[in-house]
């Protein structure tokens, strides 16, 4: 057995609605959307390459950031642009495409990436719109094609609540995964590391792939977070850049080189306590969740989330699957009052602490809702964040450095090493109900501005 990195800190939030390992071919969605807010670091007002009414093919560019015009964001289907939905200050929230169900696609360069040079590969990824799958640390933003990253990290498993089983999702895509890895390995002079879950037998897709180095992890969430794995394998130092990518997206990249087209098909796990039959659906990136939810959700006021309950984004029940997501979660809204809720024994409440009697029944799964469960306060308790953050970082001190906008201190305390998802559990457990993830993002934005 190879060396296993055991992680003790963290917390598994046991929710109801784990997906069964059954794959269902989802009904094709009528509408698809590409959502600028999905991409951290992208300008809120990207330049549109299309107008309402424009015909697009799969892989047609929809918009780009004016400061990084090479990185294109493309359509996952062929059809017609029917809406550009805007939010406050005219920021673009969604570019909506009505599918013509024909799947006409723009073709890109085919070929074995091993025989192609870096420029050709980068070009292919940029043009087809899959480049944004590659994100970088520091700051967890879309990678810069001109960088030579020190290493590329991939987490081969997801430990978030109700997360899809990536071994299951990737089953059968071994060849495309290898092709994708071949392409990625041309982009870095360093290694490609994959973190795998040592608890289960490792899937073929990881063990049989060449050109990667495997690292074995075992532990509660956030062990599956790539940032935590990087921190244990080789932390990001000042001045360095490392890239990260999800394994499902490596497959999409592989398919570009195999087929010459952008194939946004993917398995999405429909999860959560309010889903009648939580299962895996074969659908496409950006697809509306409407066909998935049809006759499959409990009545009532629900929260629909693209992604998991810790880091996902809120969508409507006809909303669209996010660019980086392989999971849709439905949980009840918590917009009700609870009489003396803070004083009750709390057998049905879940807490990372042992302050509710539910800790006696540790194997229960819970239906948790979206209530904030308390008022916002100053930082009072200490040691809470540290219990769920398995990184060599002082989380509260880093957040305070961000709040007082002390650039040097942020740097010294390791802001280059973290992403919002790594701190999501801190936000979950926070007794003072601090908005940890958005504070962190504001720190990233400030650093980017200062560093130019």
């Amino acid at each position, binding site marked *: 057995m190879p060396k296993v990195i055991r992680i003790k800190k963290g917390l598994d939030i046991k929710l109801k609605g784990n997906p069964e390992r059954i794959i269902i071919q989802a009904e094709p969605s009528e509408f698809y959307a590409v959502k600028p807010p999905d991409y951290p670091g992208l300008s809120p007002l990207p330049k549109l390459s299309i107008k309402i009414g424009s015909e697009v093919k799969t892989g047609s560019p929809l918009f780009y950031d004016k400061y990084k015009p090479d990185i294109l964001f493309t359509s996952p289907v062929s059809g017609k642009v029917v809406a550009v939905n805007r939010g406050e200050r005219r920021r673009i929230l969604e570019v909506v495409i009505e599918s013509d169900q024909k799947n006409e696609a723009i073709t890109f360069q085919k070929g074995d990436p091993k025989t192609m040079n870096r420029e050709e590969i980068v070009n292919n990824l940029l043009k087809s719109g899959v480049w944004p799958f590659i994100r970088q640390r520091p700051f967890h933003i879309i990678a810069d094609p001109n960088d030579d990253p020190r290493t590329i990290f991939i987490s081969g498993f997801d430990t978030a609540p109700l997360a899809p089983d990536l071994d299951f999702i990737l089953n059968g895509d071994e060849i495309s995964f290898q092709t994708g890895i071949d392409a990625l390995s041309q982009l870095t002079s360093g290694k490609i590391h994959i973190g795998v879950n040592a608890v289960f037998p490792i899937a073929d897709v990881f063990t049989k792939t060449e050109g990667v180095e495997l690292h074995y992890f075992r532990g509660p969430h956030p062990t599956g977070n790539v940032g935590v794995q990087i921190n244990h394998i080789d932390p990001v130092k000042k001045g360095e850049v490392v890239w990260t990518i999800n394994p499902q997206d490596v497959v999409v990249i592989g398919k570009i080189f195999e087929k010459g087209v952008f194939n946004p098909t993917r398995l999405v796990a429909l999860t959560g306590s309010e889903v009648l039959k939580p299962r895996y659906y074969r659908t496409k990136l950006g697809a509306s969740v409407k066909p998935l939810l049809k006759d499959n959700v409990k009545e009532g006021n629900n929260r629909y989330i693209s992604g998991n309950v810790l880091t996902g984004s809120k969508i409507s029940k006809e909303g669209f699957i996010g660019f980086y997501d392989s999971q849709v979660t439905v949980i009840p809204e918590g917009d009700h009052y609870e009489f003396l809720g803070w004083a009750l024994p709390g057998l049905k409440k879940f807490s990372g602490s042992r302050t509710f009697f539910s800790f006696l029944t540790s194997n229960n799964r819970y239906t948790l809702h979206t*209530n904030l469960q308390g008022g916002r*306060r100053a930082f*009072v308790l200490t040691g809470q964040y540290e219990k769920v953050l398995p990184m*060599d*970082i002082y989380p509260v001190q880093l957040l305070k450095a961000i709040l007082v906008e002390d650039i040097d201190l942020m740097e*010294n305390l390791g802001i280059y090493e973290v992403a919002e998802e790594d701190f999501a559990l801190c936000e979950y*457990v926070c007794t003072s109900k601090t908005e940890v993830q958005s504070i962190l993002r504001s720190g990233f934005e400030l650093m980017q501005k200062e560093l130019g």
Partner: protein
Amino acid sequence: MKSLRKFVDKIKPHFSKGGKFEKLHSTFEAFESFLFVPNRVTTKGAHIRDALDMKRTMIIVVAAAVPALLFGMWNTGYQHNLSIGMEATIWENFVFGFLKVLPIIVVSYVVGLGIEFAVAQIRGHEVNEGFLVSGFLIPLIVPVDVPLWMVALATAFAVIIGKEVFGGTGMNILNPALTARAFLFFAYPGWMSGDTIWIQGLKSGEGVIDGFSGATPLANAAAGLFENLPSTWEMFLGTIPGSIGETSVIAILIGAVILIATGIGSWKIMLSMAAGGLVMGLLFNLIASNPFMEIPAWHHLIMGGFAFGAVFMATDPVTAAQTERGKWIYGFLAGIFAVLIRVINPAYPEGVMLAILLMNVFAPLIDHYVIEANIKKRRLRAKS
């Protein structure tokens, strides 16, 4: 509960902006959220949040202190009846103590919460729950005969100067309850030290049997009256004179178990403070230049306010060290200083309060060096 909710919803507009009782908005909000967990949902970040909130946290600390309070009430009656030579049942002792202690609790809460509510309204904040604990701890660390107006004054001082001027709960440097006690200790020493103040009625001397001494074990030890020292078992059980809630180590340990089991109190601080006290006690055993230095080191842990301080005071998360490594150092030094002050300085037989306040002041410095070490490590990595 629906009718209650309806009633709250009905009167709510009067307390909102533009309503008749706009000035009581924070107060209303505090009571409303006391009765009902609000219906606010998450808007950004994590969609679900832990069920633990500040109210739950504070109520658990209060629950942990309840055994000490109940024992303290009984002991108040017991000590009083002992001093006048009366036989009394457990129940009679408790009722006597209950009636003596309750006013102190009421005064502490009314004054403290009154100030908190007013400040929250001025600042436009929600009322912070921090005082629920401070207000409960203050009565436990004063002698039972302390005049109520002094309690009121000390509480006001602690809340305003000790806490609110720094920005309220979470921002204060000194533990508010200990600040109140320190205020009394230095402003009214006649009511806070000596041999006659620890037992109800002893100061006035009415009906006290001849030759009865109300001195605490610490006072006896400091005076070298070792033959007057109660037995180890009595000190552990708490049937001795002292501040209302500090005497019973057993009751305090029950609280410690609750705090540690729930994860609200830091076991690291409690353990390291006990270790610090022991180490200092052992050092004194080695020096042994006076009889007080010769008492068994572990006796320090069950005398005076050591146990209470270690479990309820030093563990206050706001004023203690905030880093995990810092907590070990902080607690250990607090233990060392407590015993050091207690044995070396005859003017202050109770060193625990001063030791913890001193370490409160040094806690940020300890944290600073712990964090510097992390920063240094990161810098070294960047260079390699």
